[in-house]
């Protein structure tokens, strides 16, 4: 038992040690690259340990009482090791390792100070994410949930001198916080009804139908709200595209592969609880599918390569959530894992492109395939995987999701997801054709990225291929129940998307402008992000700021007034009392005499 949690604890501890080292030892942090190497070494060993844990299929649980109370601890901390967390451990450490290596080259121009800060945050992030993954209960999960949110804030705002980055960091923070409020309220309600935060105990109660909590549907809905914020579900998805203001490796790690999937992971982890409330599950499926479709339409009109990928992430998170809502959480989790691989690949490749051409706008790229063929190849591999082309990893997981949703008789979500599959292929190949093929633009000589960046790219590309091939050979354990017409359908949809993109942006057989005119209402709305950002900005300005001004006025004139009076009184009292301390020895003895007298009188007054 102890041995079994020892290795997972090591996985968790190493990034934390690296973080502490970098945070406390200032000179080490300020070396920049040295700090990076420390962080990378820690995460590399951590990754090795995670692999060992995964390969040996550890299953263990160990908790320690944390906040003691008379009748057993109120809260526990610990680790819960099972196949779910094992797979997640490997994904998190792998992508983190590659991203940190990649960052060495990507951020080579940073000054040592900020670079050290970057790696300090990175180590803290990995530790927090692993702590979230290993959490055996809601409370620990929430603590680490907030910690990853904090790291996300810090890393989005890494270039905080840029106003856009600072604004995006704040936006990401407070929008996810909206969901977190629901999350914590749900957790506390669940705790007050059941008396425990621990998953295992809750699952046991759920299994014995002993979880007769009034208002369980509301509680689970509140908990789901946390996932809505963190996993960028409609209507709280607006923060994720803005989060692209952070450095690209950060987007790859936090805003594609790991942190944003925390919501999906949480729903998957607590699936036995959600299973008790089918109405919430249905809602999750509908919201997920709708998010997938909405984000895909916005990706189709976006010109910023990172934003296209961001919308695509939102869209794929919708897929995962829809699967979880349809009761096919294994399929959703599988999609989480494969998506983590190829989306990190796409982001890192996009980073290499941005690094080379110095712009995010795909219409100012073009012909990049000739200039940087290796990046081009891996980008196409990622695109194929995301579009769901066999035998790449994405095909199998996406099909499993579609199959699961179909099986649950959720026709509406299924149709939305199918349409999304078509759009996914379309917008991804749109990027490929516009940026990598097509006419090259004058200005600058784009060149292949250094090896430190290409290495992680190739590794991710090969893994994407290998995982897909393993599925193809190993047969579908997860999508056995899917109807036989599903694979041809999904491949067909991807093909339609590909052909459309090819015809519009490569052959120029169809003029994109005419399509846009034909679909004016959609185009108009999608380009304006369906007015949601504007709506939030308006709400923020109108209601929240107005409310804040009111509260501010009350605070300044009413609360402060009372407080100032109280403070003055307290200080006066302290000053007055000081005169007791005369410095004369006889007064001190009087003090003792007075004290004895006080004891006698007081005891007399309160005699029982």
């Amino acid at each position: 038992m102890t041995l079994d949690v020892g290795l997972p604890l090591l996985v968790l501890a190493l990034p934390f040690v690296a973080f502490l080292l970098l945070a406390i030892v200032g000179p080490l942090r300020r070396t920049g690259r040295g700090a990076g190497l420390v962080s990378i070494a820690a995460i590399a060993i951590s990754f090795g340990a995670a692999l060992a844990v995964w390969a040996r299929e550890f299953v263990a649980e160990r908790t320690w009482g944390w906040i003691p109370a008379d009748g057993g601890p109120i809260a526990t901390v610990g680790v819960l090791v099972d196949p779910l967390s094992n797979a997640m451990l490997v994904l998190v450490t792998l992508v983190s390792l590659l991203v940190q290596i990649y960052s060495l080259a990507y951020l080579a121009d940073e000054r040592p100070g900020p670079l050290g800060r970057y790696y300090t945050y990175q180590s803290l992030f990995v530790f927090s994410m692993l702590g979230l993954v290993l959490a055996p209960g809601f409370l620990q999960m929430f603590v680490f949930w907030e910690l990853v949110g904090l790291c996300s804030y810090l890393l989005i705002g890494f270039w905080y001198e840029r106003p856009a980055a600072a604004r995006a960091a704040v936006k990401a923070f407070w929008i996810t916080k909206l969901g977190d409020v629901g999350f914590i309220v749900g957790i506390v309600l669940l705790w007050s009804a059941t008396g425990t935060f621990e998953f295992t105990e809750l699952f046991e109660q759920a299994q014995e139908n002993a979880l007769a909590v009034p208002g369980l549907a509301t509680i689970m809905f509140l908990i789901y709200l946390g996932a809505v914020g963190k996993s960028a579900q409609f209507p709280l998805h607006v923060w994720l595209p803005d989060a692209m203001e952070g450095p690209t490796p950060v987007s790859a790690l936090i805003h594609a592969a790991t942190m944003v999937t925390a919501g999906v992971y949480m729903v998957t982890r607590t699936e036995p609880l959600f299973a008790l409330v089918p109405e919430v599950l249905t809602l999750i499926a509908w919201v997920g599918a709708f998010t997938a479709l909405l984000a895909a339409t916005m990706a189709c009109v976006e010109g910023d390569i990172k934003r296209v990928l961001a919308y695509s992430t939102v869209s794929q998170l919708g897929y995962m959530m829809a699967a979880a809502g349809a009761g096919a959480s294994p399929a959703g989790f599988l999609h989480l894992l494969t998506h983590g691989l190829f989306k990190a690949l796409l982001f890192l490749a996009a980073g290499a492109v941005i690094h080379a051409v110095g712009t995010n706008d795909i219409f100012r790229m073009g012909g990049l395939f000739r200039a940087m063929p290796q990046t081009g190849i891996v980008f196409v591999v990622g695109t194929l995987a995301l579009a769901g082309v066999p035998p790449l990893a994405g095909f199998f997981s996406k099909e499993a999701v579609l199959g699961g949703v179909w099986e649950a008789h959720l026709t509406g979500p299924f149709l939305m997801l199918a349409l999304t599959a078509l759009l996914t292929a379309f917008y991804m190949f749109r990027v490929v054709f516009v940026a990598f093929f097509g006419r090259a633009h004058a200005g600058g000589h784009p060149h292949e990225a250094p090896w430190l960046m290409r290495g992680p790219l190739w590794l991710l590309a090969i893994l994407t291929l290998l995982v897909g091939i393993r599925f193809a050979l190993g047969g579908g354990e997860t999508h056995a129940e899917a109807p036989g017409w599903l694979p041809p359908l999904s491949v067909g949809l991807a093909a339609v998307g590909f052909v459309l993109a090819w015809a519009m942006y490569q052959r120029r057989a169809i003029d994109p402008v005419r399509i846009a005119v034909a679909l004016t209402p959609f185009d108009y709305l999608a380009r304006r992000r369906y007015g949601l950002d504007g709506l939030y900005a308006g709400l923020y300005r109108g209601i929240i700021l107005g409310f804040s001004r009111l509260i501010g006025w009350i605070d300044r004139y009413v609360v402060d007034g009372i407080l100032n009076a109280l403070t003055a009184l307290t200080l006066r009292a302290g000053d007055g009392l000081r005169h007791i301390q005369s410095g004369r020895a006889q007064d001190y003895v009087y003090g003792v005499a007075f004290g004895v007298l006080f004891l006698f009188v007081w005891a007399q007054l309160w005699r029982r």
Partner: protein
Amino acid sequence: MSPFTLEIAIGAVMLAVFGATLAARGTDRRWIAWVATLGVLAIGLVSVFARPTPPALFGMFVQDGLAIFAKRLFLAATFIGLLAGISRDGVACGRRAGEYHLLILSSLLGMLVLSSARDLILLFVAFELMSIPLYVLAGFLKSQAESVEAALKFFLVGSVSSAVMAYGLSFVYGATRTTDLARVAQTFAPGQPLLLLGLLAVFAGFAFKIAAFPFHMWVPDTYEAASTPFVAWLSVAPKAAGFVALFRVYFEGMGDRAAAWSPIAAGLAALTIVGGNLMALPQQNTKRLLAYSGIAHIGYMLVGFAAASAAGMAMVLFYLVAYVFGNMGAFLVVEAVARSERSEATAALRGLAQRSPLLALAMLLFLLSLGGIPFVAGFWAKLYVFWAAAAAGLYWLVLVGAVLTVVALFYYLVVAKRMYIEPPDASAGRIRPSATLAVAVILCAIGVVALGVYPKPIVMAALRIATPLF
């Protein structure tokens, strides 16, 4: 292990220090300090293996869980205090190093015996053995008039309190015809005026030792005038000993009748919290500020005492541990700054964050712990004593304590502001504490953080100790 092993070991260390004093030549006698310090460390390590034994000396001397817990705490505090005092020019390492350490060790011996005493005579003797060396130590800087004056006041108030206490003890004997505390507890019933009067007078004696308001008057003067490493130790170890003796006399074997002490302790607690915190507000000298804040902390511990329950007692024990680390640490940082600044004013801490980031961070941790901010030790300590008091129905007392906590935060954060926000004087360079002092500060900081992050082991140990006493 014999029940007397630790006491005999202290005696051995005292003999060694005495022998060393006879052999010592020259003015740099740091090695004597090392003998005492390492001796205490060794005894501390031995105490880890101490286990409860049956009462010895006809039931006068008990080595139970409470005694062992307290002895470990005294030894740890003494070790840190002695370690911090080792310096080339410190008073503890000069020509009179032998005297200084012998006095500290005898007082320590008094504490160890006190925490095991279950007999009125032994209790009183141990109490005096602990106290009298303290009077001498307070006046150890005999060339300074303030130090002598403070020692004299300390002695005067101490003797009056001892007299009251001895007077009370005679009443207790008169009413019960025994000096055995176990029998006293059996005969005690709230209705007997003579016994109650006696025990109240004894309470006054303890109140002086723990420096509850209004028995506290000696504290600020003594703390300000005496040498800081000694004050760091004086501010925690005898207080802890006082509380252990209080538990012995007023709780052990009392069961539900212990609730009789609740109103008295609650009244004293409220007075002490209000008085200590308010008087700390206008202080400009860090040692005086810490003196008053220490008085307020005694008030918070009395809140736990007023709960008169096993939980309340356990939480006071936890509070004591948290207080030992937090308060000693804060005093030691003052010492480190004073060694280079020759000033103990709060103004001397200006810009400490730039002059010594480590000291500033440690001080911040101690202040946060004393102020009761999560996740440092003091937070749990306050939370737990309030919890115990609320469980005993003393809501008004919890309210008083909580409100005054805000006042306390104010003066702690003013110090933090001086360290972190105000710039240092232009002429001020870096402060480099000596290695021993730095180690002592770091030990305290580790204690504060470790207890704050993971309070469970100490809380559970304290609960295990407290429960069988009722």
